[in-house]
Each structure stands twice: as C-alpha cells, then as structure tokens.
C-alpha cells in the first residue's frame, strides 16, 4: 500500500497549482462566470501548450500518455482553482468517449485537434427526464441514404454553447425500451441545431440543445448502431471519478480558506478558531475532505490499473456529493456574513458543490449502485 503521490505526480501537481494560481485567480473565475462564453481562449491555448488536453491520449494522437491516476491529480488542481471553461467537457466527456469508443479514423481525426486545444467538445446524454438511464433517451435518429437524421432535445449539456462538436446519444426511431441507442459526433454548425444556455446556480455553462432534422454523415457514428449505451457505460466510471477528483480539490480549498479565516477573525477578544464549536466544525470538514481524497484516489488508482471497480466508483461519488456540500456549508457557518457576499470567494465552492453533486448521479443514485453491489 502507498498513499503518496509519486515524484512525477508531485511535479505535475506543483506545476498545475502554480500555473492555476497565476492564471486562474478567483477574480478570473468570477469574471468568467459572468462571461457569455465562460472561458478564455488565451488560457485555453496555454493549457494546451502544457499538454493538458492530450494528457491521457496516446502519443500517436499528440498525447502525453499519462494514466488516469495522473489525470486525477490534474483534475484535483482544477477543482481547487475552480477552473472555468470546457476542459471537463472536451477532455473527459468528449476525449475519453472518442478514445474508448471511436474507430481509428475518428481518433486520428479528432484527438490531435483536442490535444492541440483547437476544438471544444461535449457530450449530450440527459434529456427532460433528467436521469442517467437509457429509458431517459427520447432523442431519435433515422437511417438515411447519406447517413442519419437526428431529432430531439438534450438538456444539461455542459458547454454546448461553445462546443465545436457534440457527442449525442440517440435512439433508433423504431426502437422500443433500452435498445438501439447510438452515439454520434455532430458538428454544432450543422443545420437544425439550436443551443440555449440554462440559468444555473454555479455560473458554469449548461445548455438545452435542440436537434431538428439534423443531418449527419455515416462516419459520425461512434461504435456500432446498437453500441451507444455500452460506450457510455464504459466511460461513465471515468467521468464520475474525474468529477470526484475535482471535488477533492474544491473541498480542500474551501477547507483551507475556512481555516485561514478561523485563525484571523477575532471575536470576544480571540480568534474564533479557539472556540470549540468552530474547531469541531473544522475537524468534521477535514474528515469529509480526507474521506473524499482516499475514496476517490482508490477508485482512480483502480481505473488506471484496469481493475473492475463499479462499487468503488459509486462509493466515491456517493461520498463526494454529500461531503463537498457539507464542507462548504460549514465553511459558510464559520465565515458568517462575509461568506454570504458576492465579493468573497467561498460561494464559488458552495455553488460548485451543489452542481457537482447533481451531475453524474447524486449520492442516492450512487448508493443504489452500492446497494446492488452489496447484493441487496
């Protein structure tokens, strides 16, 4: 057993932290939350130069061949910085889907462009039902002579407003139940696509995407016609754990912010950190954060070793979803009124905690998987 990062991971972490401290201060995060696009193309290029976009791609696609555990170290730092922009959408949702589900031609076509920071991708699975079940997919495709036509509406699609391509899960027109789901990569400039941003609490960009008679070519199909759901299932654990890694960083930052405040802020003639109630809250926060770290890195390590870990992944998201929310709520309680202001930074994390809880299955969703894994 070894709970520590290796030397390369330490270097990666320090490099990422230094870079993001400089390039992504909280003022920038707030600016981007208000910004229509929600990201800075300049920062995006710099991240691409560091090799982050192709971090886990094979070298032949312009990648750095990092493993998933290394990527988690990077995601943790992004979560800590509350990094705005489409990294998660492009690399985790889009890149990993193509890496795991795409054919050679598709990988050659898209992955190097992702690695160079030239294109932004996202994945559209959820619909009006708001669930992550195959039953929830009502978007339909029809086979045509040239390719396919897609009709339907996706909701909660991250960064679709700036995406160059959307990977979309659709069901064959004639299909009933859970069968016939296919995954397509669609150019957002295609005729018939309407993207409408949704107003959410955290300032990150999510959209409704309407597909009305959108015509795509044969080569837009990723995997076989009936393989869409199995690709989603295959990439799902990585999506979930990458999100958990962001939670680890975000929760750690919220904790550190709070400890600093508890040491500085004086009431009744001494720092509030001397008060037992405050100390106990802080101790609870550490338990939550360290719990997030251990359970997430365990799952991440298992994924990078190719071990089967459905239960560990579900445990990680079940814990992180609730723990991050608890940590930021206690952080607010300790900060008092100042934390409730817009100028303070804590609300960025409080909002993220809720958004990240709701994405890719909340704690109840994942505890149900744990229950199944326990044989219940």
């Amino acid at each position, binding site marked *: 057993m070894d709970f520590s990062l290796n030397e390369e991971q330490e270097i990666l972490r320090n490099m990422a932290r230094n870079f993001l401290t400089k390039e992504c201060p909280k003022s920038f995060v707030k600016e981007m939350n208000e910004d229509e696009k929600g990201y800075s193309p300049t920062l995006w290029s710099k991240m691409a130069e560091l090799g982050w976009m192709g971090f886990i791609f094979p070298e032949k696609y312009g990648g750095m061949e990092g493993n998933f555990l290394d990527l988690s170290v990077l995601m943790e730092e992004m979560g800590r910085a509350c990094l705005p922009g489409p990294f998660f959408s492009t690399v985790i949702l889009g890149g990993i889907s193509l890496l795991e589900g795409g054919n050679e031609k598709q990988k050659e076509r898209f992955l190097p462009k992702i690695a160079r920071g030239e294109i932004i991708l996202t994945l559209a699975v959820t619909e009006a039902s708001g669930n992550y079940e195959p039953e929830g997919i009502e978007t339909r495709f029809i086979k045509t002579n040239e390719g396919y036509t897609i009709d339907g509406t996706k909701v909660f699609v991250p960064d679709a407003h700036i995406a160059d391509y959307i990977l979309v899960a659709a069901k064959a027109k004639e299909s009933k139940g859970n069968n016939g789901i296919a995954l397509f990569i669609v150019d957002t400039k295609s005729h018939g696509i309407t993207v409408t941003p949704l107003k959410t609490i955290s300032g990150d960009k999510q959209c409704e995407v309407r597909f009305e008679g959108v015509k795509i070519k044969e080569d837009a199909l990723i995997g076989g016609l009936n393989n869409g759901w199995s690709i989603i299932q295959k990439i799902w654990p990585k999506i979930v754990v990458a999100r958990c890694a962001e939670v680890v960083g975000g929760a750690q930052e919220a904790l550190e912010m709070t400890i600093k405040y508890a040491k500085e802020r004086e009431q009744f003639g001494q720092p509030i950190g001397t008060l037992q109630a405050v*100390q106990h809250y802080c*101790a609870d926060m550490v338990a939550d954060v360290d719990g997030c770290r251990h359970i997430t890195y365990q799952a991440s390590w298992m994924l990078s070793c190719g071990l089967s870990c459905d239960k560990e992944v579900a445990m990680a998201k079940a814990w992180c979803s609730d723990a991050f929310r608890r940590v930021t709520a206690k952080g607010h309680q300790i900060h008092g009124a100042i934390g409730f202001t817009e100028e303070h930074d804590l609300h960025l994390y409080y909002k993220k905690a809720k958004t990240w809880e709701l994405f890719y299955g909340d704690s109840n969703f994942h505890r149900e998987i744990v229950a199944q894994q326990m044989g219940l």
Partner: protein
Amino acid sequence: MDFSFTKEQESLRQEVRDFLEAKVRDGEFQVKSNGWVESHSQKFSKDMSSRGWIGMTWPKEYGGHERSYIDRAIVMEEMLTYQAPIGFHFLADRQVGPAIIHFGNDEQKKTYLPKIINADISIAIGLSEPNAGSDLVSVKTTAIEQGDFYIINGQKVWTTGGHRADYIWCLVRTDLNAPKHKALSEFIVDVKTPGITIRPIINMAGIHSFNEIFFEDVKVPKENLVGPKNRGFYQLMAQVDYERAGLERLMQNYPLFKNLVEYVKNEKRNGKALSKDPFIRNKLAELEVEYQIGRLFCYHVAWTLSQGRIPNYEAALCKAFCTQFEQRLSDAATSVLGLYGQLMPGSEYAPMDGDAADSYLWSVSYTIQGGTLEVLKNIVATRGLGLPVAKS
C-alpha cells in the same frame, strides 16, 4: 499510489483466515460482535504468538518480528472480522509494548517485551480517575519516592480488564509542586503488590469489563518507572496515537454488519423482502460507504506509521470517524430489526442472537473511550490544522 497488498500480505491474510476458521470449527470461540472485548484467552494469545502475530512491528532484539504496520493491520483486520478472543494480549500489544520500546530502558525492554510477545503476561491500562477523564493532566494518584521504592496512593477507574491482568500501566503524579503536566510519570505495576484492591464496575451492557482500582501505600520498585520521572504526560501524548489508530475502532461490530446485510435479504415484512425497501437499501449502502472510508483511514494511519511518522492528528481523525460509524451502525441495525431490535442476547426471538441490541448498548462507549469525540476533534483542529488554543 497503490491500494493493493503485496503477494506476501495476501498470503498472510489467508494464513490468518485459515487459522481462525480452524479455531471456529474447533469451537474455541464464536463469531459475535464485541466478542474480542469480552474474551480473554491466554491459550488463544499463545497460539497467535507462536505464529508471530504479537509484537509484529517490534525490534527482533526483544523477540519482535520487525514487520510493517500494514502487516499488523492485516492481522488485526482478520482477527476483528472474526472477533477472535484477543483480549489477553491486546492492550499490551497495542499500547504498552510500543510505550516501553519508545520510553523504557534496556532492562525493561528485556523484561517485558518478550513476555508480552509470548503471551505470558496480560497488562491493563490505568489512566483515568474519578476526576480525570479527558483531562488526564489532573490525575491525583501519587507516587512518592521512598528509598528504592515509590509509594503509590490513589484510585484509578474504568480500568478495562483490570481484574484479569498481571500488570497495570499507571499514570501517576510524582511531583506535588511542579506544574500539572510536568509532574506525571508512568509506571508498570504488578497487581499482586500488597495494597491494591480491584472492584468490578458493571457497564450498561451488563458486562464486567471495567474496574476501579485502589492503591493504598503500594510499594513499587524504582525500576518500574518507565521513562524519565515527570515526563509521563509527554510520553502519553505519543502513546495514545497508537491507541486511536487501529481497526478495532471500526470493526467492533463487524459480524453485526455482515449479518444485517444477509438478514435484510432474507427477511420479509409486509410481504416484501426488507432489502427491497429503498430506505433500508440506502441506509445500508450509506453505512457501507462510511465503513470503507473508515477502513481507508485506518490503513492510511498504518501506512503513515510504516513511513516512520507519528500519525497524531490522523489517528484522532480516524478514531473520531470510525466510532461514529459504529454508533450509526448499531443504531441502524436496531431500527431495521424493528421490535426485534431491542432483544438482548439469549432471548429466543432475538435475530443474530441479540447482537444488534448488545451493540447498541456498547456503542455509547465508543465515542468516549480513548479520548472523547470532542477532545479528538480539538486535537484535529489544533494539532492538525494549527487552530489556536484558547487563552486560559
């Protein structure tokens, strides 16, 4: 990072499991929650000793095995899974031995360590007093120098297993004038010394596990002082990190947890398996997640020790987390069983022979013994996070 065990560690685990399976088959003990606390078998401890499972991390020079803390955690995890009767050697192995290794002199190491390792002696811990629980600096029992001896007078309380021990590890006041924390010392005291009276205290689970111990002009040879005189408090601060770190804080009710999961699968209420009730599924899954995180906390502490670092805030955090899990487990178990949740061991209607009710009663003590939850959180906050200590 690596969350796997080595091949040797996997085979160690299997060896321990085989050993325990054979013991259960032979009827030497029954797998039952809280089993290890209540049972005390020198024979069992001697069998463990012959396998090299006592003093696992200690120096070879004194009969130890110089194995890693992870190895020790593996053995402990299996012992607790089966709730094996490890009470005879447990406190000496967990706490007293490491204290002697760190603070004892050569003579003490040669005298006590091999005896602990061979399960020749059982040792209880006498720290608390009627007015010194969390505030151990306030202990009033005195040990006053007189020639080649110290004369001990006073009273200890909550001494687990004191009635079966050969020795008591005592925290006493050796200086009546110095500041409180600079006046304490640690002694190892033979219970057969004249002047010692041991009285049972029955806990609310109906078990005689606690004792109160009275010392009346008890003459203890000077060589029984462990470490320098008046340094006892500082020694103790390091020792308790060992006490708080173990899997025993997580797994006291492991059989209950395991059996509860099986129980809900097989039991029907209102024509439906209990396991199909969404609230029960959610509750048990929640406990499972907490259990697995607690397990990672425990192994993280063992790993920290194996790196040569004292896990002081991590150990406090680990104990705080794990004991709360155990309380929630016993509470959930009694609730899931409905009316049957209140039935004590021995009742003919009691599912799992009353393990749920029994654990529910025991669980009150988990967040008190070895440092209350609140004291542990203060340690995490002040030692771990560097929060300031209140002006007194």
